[in-house]
């Protein structure tokens, strides 16, 4: 019973915190002629927010060692053709 009350209070607290937050970021996935959505079984509003924020992988050039190696290799191929 105590656990249920704690969980309920936590859910209310999270709802208040979320409502006070800024608007959600834009949808990262392209929509084209149809919309692809991923379900979010977690009822927590923070999870619902996070569910809209997936990346499509395009941030790779900024961080991934392997992808940056690929980009450098392509640039060097271009250099030989300039």
């Amino acid at each position, binding site marked *: 019973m105590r656990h249920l009350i704690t969980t309920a209070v936590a859910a209310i607290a999270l709802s208040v915190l979320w409502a006070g937050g800024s608007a959600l*970021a834009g949808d990262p996935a392209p929509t084209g002629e*149809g919309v692809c959505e991923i379900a979010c079984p977690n009822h927590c509003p923070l999870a619902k927010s996070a569910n809209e924020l997936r990346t499509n992988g395009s*941030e790779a050039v900024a961080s*991934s060692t*392997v992808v940056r*190696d690929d*980009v450098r290799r392509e640039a060097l191929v271009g250099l*030989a053709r*300039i």
Partner: protein
Amino acid sequence: MRFPLLIAAALVGVTLLLAPARAEDAPPADMNAATVAFAEGRLDECVKICSEVSTSLPADNDEHVRALYLRGQAYLLQGKPAEAETDLRGVVAERKKSAVAHEALGRALAAQRKNDDAETSLRTAVDLDKKSATAHRALGEVLIAKQSYSDARTVLAKAWKLGPGDPLTAIPLVDVELGYKSVKGALKIARAVIKKHPEHPVGHFLLGRALEYDGEWKDAAAAYEASIACDDTYADAHKNLAIVLHTQNDMYRDREMLDRSMKAYERYFELGGNEPELRRVYDQMVAFLAWQKEEAGK
């Protein structure tokens, strides 16, 4: 992975050395050093050498043009697209018929979200070299940015045909396929990348993306983890892993899954991830967990 880069750098060096020598040419050794620095990721050093080479030579000199091109590429990798654009416009001015030059300029423009100008440059690149997979890829990415998804799909399919299994082409291609609800198409592309490049993080990451849309979240999480095992610096994989573990853990009943999710968020931010809304979510999760711990201790 570094070995092929050094091979490419060596080939460029040999090409430069075998190029016809002219009295006004700078010694190719400087561009060799710049090329090796670039190949090894020492971008500041590459920029410095290219600056020395370019300032000592007239604009129409071959070494000057190569120095501008390489410095422009280094600037792009350093996240300085405006500086890259200046250099690459210089390259295009001297190499009007070069698809490579127009492509590089297109990328610099796209990085600044100058999408109309980027499209113009990249269409020129594609017209000059109809078999360039990279030019088609870059054009496809710009068309996605302009929300011309049908055209993007056509162009990226061409890029894929010219360079099948290429991880960097697969990223925007899977994006478009999922946008058209073609989960099977996305899965096929991801698996093709994994088959050709099993040690590359992007194939596994894209498989994870497609599996999430297919409702297979556990397999998706495993795929993201496989991507991280290939390259722990791939921030995108940490981000999506954090989100899938977070969103599938209803009311955080699974403590171990919650811990894995928080660790993945932390690693994403450590790697420079700066999605502000996600930072807000993470910070509020941290506050919530601290509050919960305090309540449990009472």
